[in-house]
């Protein structure tokens, strides 16, 4: 079968491969190369070595500020989202009426796109701040916590669904046996449920981590970096470097490569952790 199948490469693989080459392989290789070049358009690139990389950190503090803002935001939102999502999942796996309706409602914001989410929350937060006679872009703190609130609203339901799937996989008789042995609810949670849903916890941690780290649309719509670029996250800073003013395309591409390496490091860490767990459980 393999022999006959091999001949059908042009039909089964070629269309996908051509699109993949145009949209990914060529841009990726070009991207790495261009990060070492001085250029405005791809055709006038001149090799300059690591100049763009040092410029990324040295021309101004924008990249480093964006990095810090992104890291702080990621830590806070990953923690809050996962705690709230786990608590919701615990509550909604009990025998109460209407769990399906609650799940439906909590999950819904996840389907709304980042731009729309940004403007919804701009209205809400500005409405609250109006009482204190300031606006969202008055202080970077407001933008920061606004983004945290927005991300929580968007992702809690999503993570909750994954946690629910994990909790439902915990065998019922295990919990029953623990109850008969006199275990308290806290003990059951600590010694049975949390260890059993560890795979879900890993998945959720990394999903929220990479989603928060790569955030762009929500950032653009909510504050667009205001005031004075203090709420700019990495992805938005890279975009601004490319398209803000001409002449910094090379620096933008160097920042993009650094961004890619950070995101890849997160993903590979996740892969290693998941693999290790799988080996252990075998």
């Amino acid at each position, binding site marked *: 079968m393999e022999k006959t199948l091999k001949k059908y490469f042009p039909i089964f693989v070629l269309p996908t491969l051509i699109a993949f080459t145009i949209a990914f392989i060529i841009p990726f290789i070009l991207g790495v190369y261009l990060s070492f070049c001085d250029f405005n358009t791809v055709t006038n690139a001149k090799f300059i070595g690591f100049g763009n990389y040092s410029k990324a950190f040295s021309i101004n503090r924008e990249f480093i500020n964006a990095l810090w803002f992104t890291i702080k935001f990621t830590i806070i939102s990953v923690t809050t989202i996962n705690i709230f999502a786990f608590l919701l999942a615990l509550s909604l796996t009990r025998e109460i009426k209407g769990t399906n309706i609650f799940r439906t409602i909590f999950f819904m914001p996840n389907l709304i796109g980042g731009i729309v989410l940004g403007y919804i929350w701009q209205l809400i937060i500005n409405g609250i701040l109006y009482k204190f006679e300031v606006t969202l872009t008055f202080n970077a703190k407001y933008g920061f916590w606004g983004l945290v609130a927005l991300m929580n609203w968007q992702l809690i339901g999503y993570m909750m669904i994954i946690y629910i799937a994990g909790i439902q996989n915990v065998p019922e008789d295990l919990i029953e046996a623990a109850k008969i042995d006199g275990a308290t609810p806290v003990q059951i949670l600590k010694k049975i449920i949390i260890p059993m849903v560890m795979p879900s916890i890993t998945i959720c941690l990394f999903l929220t981590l990479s989603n928060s780290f790569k955030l762009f649309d929500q950032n*653009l719509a909510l504050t667009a970096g205001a005031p004075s670029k203090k709420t700019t996250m990495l992805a938005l800073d890279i975009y601004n470097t490319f398209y803000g003013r001409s002449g910094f395309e090379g620096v933008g*591409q160097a920042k993009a490569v650094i961004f890619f390496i950070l995101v890849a490091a997160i993903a590979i860490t996740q892969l290693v952790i998941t693999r290790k767990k799988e080996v252990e459980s075998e």
Partner: protein
Amino acid sequence: MNKKIDSRNNLVIMIIMIVLSVAFLIPILIVFMNSFKGKLYISDTPFKLPSKTTFVGLNNYIEGIVKIGFFKSFGWSLFITIFSVAAIVFFTSMTGWWLTRVKTKFTTALYYMFAFSMIVPFQMVMFPMVKVSNMLHLDNPFGIIVIYLGFGAGLSVFMFCGFVKSLPIEVEESAMIDGCTPILTFFKVVLPILKPTAITVAILNTMWIWNDYLLPYLLIGNNYKTIPIAIQYLKGGYGAIDMGAMMAMLVLAIIPIIVFYMLCQKHIVKGVISGAVKG
């Protein structure tokens, strides 16, 4: 005794859940409420219901629809999403099956390349991708389908490969021995079995492409505005936003999503879970 405590706890939890789910809906309800108020009354008092002086009926909707050409945007969003998702499901399912059934160094390398592309953030390839697309004249609503197929291929091929690996090869082999060509075997035998994965892939890509902002903005945003681009465009470069039109357009942007959610809630939830586990 235990039962009593349990049921009392459940009642408390249920009340908390009711309060929380109302809180979750409030942002959307507030936007909806403000979409009927005059634009000057929105920023000041967003939490007040429309009154006689502030109520403007459907004015915001009409103004917004005219300003950003909402129905045109809706049409482009629909066109690009449907055809890109169809292309992705059609082509990557074929690729996924072929890559799993033909085992050579080349297929393994290709598989890893697709998997690798999943961890690359868009900003990494953004600039060169737009330039390449411009050169190849893919900067139109038809060309962007090719770009979505290429950029979405990673996750989709990966998911199809994962599923095909779990399928027994015997059925396909016997179909081919009976004289089926690989193409017929794929569409008559394999594809029907792949249906659950195909639905998952379709849902994940629909959610991505429908809401995607940056890629279509950079590629076709000047001439063809999808809904996210149109909404961002409403903000304009400088000066105050027309809050009335903005509220109305946000409502119109949310409605299709809620309808989609209501229609295929089960598939969406299932798709999102399996997407998360595999991605």
